[in-house]
């Protein structure tokens, strides 16, 4: 079945088919339509879920942790300052190894207050031990949410699925849905190994761990993250049987023979694809690498995919103030191990929702192809 859905509605649609037990949620632009959409489904009796209207995002994550620890499937959604508000609890969710799935609609962090898209919110949480997957379109968001649930429950790490605020979340797109019974079969019944409502096997969750044991518990998370790469691919292969789509670490678009490669997350990758189509008609060897799995970061696979390129430009939609931008950092990291390194360039764009145009992207491609000096590393800055 094909529906016209916004990115936010695609999340509600996925949640409708997943039917989580508990959804504690607090509204924030541009995520609100997710909470609203799901609340409508609950009110109409279309799904059997407990929506908890909490007083803040910190409470939303706390409640999700409580529900998940009790043995329920818990999901929530947030953006920007909401994600920032629950920052303390992100580490609790991952430290307690709870398979919570959260939709993050990328919006700029304050200050200044801004409701539009940039990646500062989710990038700010990249060390939280949450699995992070970025989505270009509503179709991808929908599929990623379903994949995320299985991934979270297998790795026992929480997962956040990103999409661009307003650009993807509020834009009506064509989404091909999987039949509900097939989704139900794919996600299965949740059978937690350790849960607080298991009265036959009582456990304590959230104990204190001093210097003699804390390190080891955290290392277990390191191993779980490392292992998550393999599990992501395995579950992706299963999902491919239902959708026909590929779920690799990244999407490559005209990458194999490209001399100049652009790397970008989320919707901007779509804009880049348009420009590539145009420039390829003019016989220019340009390509795109669009990372999907950001945490854990697939350093080796990305380096392998990029090693043939002559020049690479990484477009970051966030800054890491006082350091290299996040995506650029990871790419540079990945390329360190190569004997012959492509020329690497960093661009920052789109902060606070500033548009990046096809002409901007074309200029980046042409400058690199023709060895022209880069006019601006901060695209469109005045």
């Amino acid at each position: 079945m094909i529906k016209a859905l916004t990115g936010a509605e695609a999340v509600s649609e996925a949640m409708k088919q997943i039917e989580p037990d508990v959804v504690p949620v607090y509204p924030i632009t541009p995520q609100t339509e997710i909470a609203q959409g799901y609340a409508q489904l609950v009110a109409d009796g279309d799904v059997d879920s407990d929506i908890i209207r909490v007083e803040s995002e910190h409470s939303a994550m706390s409640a999700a942790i409580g529900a998940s620890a009790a043995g329920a499937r818990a999901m929530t959604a947030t953006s920007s300052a909401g994600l920032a508000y629950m920052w303390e609890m992100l580490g609790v969710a991952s430290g307690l190894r709870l398979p919570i799935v959260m939709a993050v609609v990328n919006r700029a962090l304050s200050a200044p207050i801004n409701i539009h898209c940039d990646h500062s919110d989710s990038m700010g949480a990249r060390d939280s031990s949450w699995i992070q997957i970025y989505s270009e379109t509503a179709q991808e968001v929908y599929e990623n949410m379903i994949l995320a649930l299985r991934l979270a429950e297998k790795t026992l790490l929480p997962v956040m699925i990103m999409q661009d605020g307003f650009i993807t979340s509020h834009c009506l797109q064509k989404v091909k849905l999987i039949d509900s019974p097939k989704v139900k079969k794919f996600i299965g019944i949740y059978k937690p190994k350790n849960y607080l409502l298991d009265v036959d096997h009582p456990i304590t969750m959230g104990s204190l761990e001093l210097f003699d044991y804390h390190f080891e518990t955290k290392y277990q998370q390191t191993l779980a993250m490392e292992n998550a790469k393999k599990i992501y691919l395995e579950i992706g292969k299963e999902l491919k049987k239902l959708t026909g789509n590929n779920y690799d670490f990244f999407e490559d678009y005209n990458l194999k023979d490209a001399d100049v490669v652009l790397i970008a997350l989320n919707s901007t990758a779509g804009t880049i694809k348009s420009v590539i189509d145009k420039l390829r008609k003019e016989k220019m060897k340009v390509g795109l690498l669009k990372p999907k799995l950001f945490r854990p970061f697939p350093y080796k696979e990305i380096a392998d995919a990029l090693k043939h390129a002559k020049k690479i430009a990484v477009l970051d939609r966030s800054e890491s103030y006082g350091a290299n931008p996040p995506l650029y950092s990871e790419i540079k990291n990945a390329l360190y191990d190569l004997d012959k390194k492509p020329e690497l360039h960093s661009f920052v764009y789109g902060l606070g929702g500033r548009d990046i145009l096809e002409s901007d992207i074309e200029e980046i491609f042409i400058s690199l192809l023709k060895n022209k000096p880069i006019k601006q590393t901060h695209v469109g800055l005045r």
Partner: protein
Amino acid sequence: MKLKTHKEMKIAALAEPGTSVENETGSWRTFRPIPEKSKCINCLTCYNVCPENAIKIKNNKIDYIDYKFCKGCLICVRECPAHVIRAEKEGQ
């Protein structure tokens, strides 16, 4: 007590019930409460106030202090109405 490796440990610091029986907290003490048993009037005040249940009773009389668990809070020293228990620095 041999410390476990990360492979032997449960994930997420999950704990079975009853760990307070396994975790011996006697090493936390700075001062040790030592009762003068001959002076004890068996009012059971110290037994009632001990937060660790480290003071043990036999035949409704104070028997001994379990120093494997006594944390040295000295509430028993302070509350004993007959001043039977004295505090001594550990390791002396």
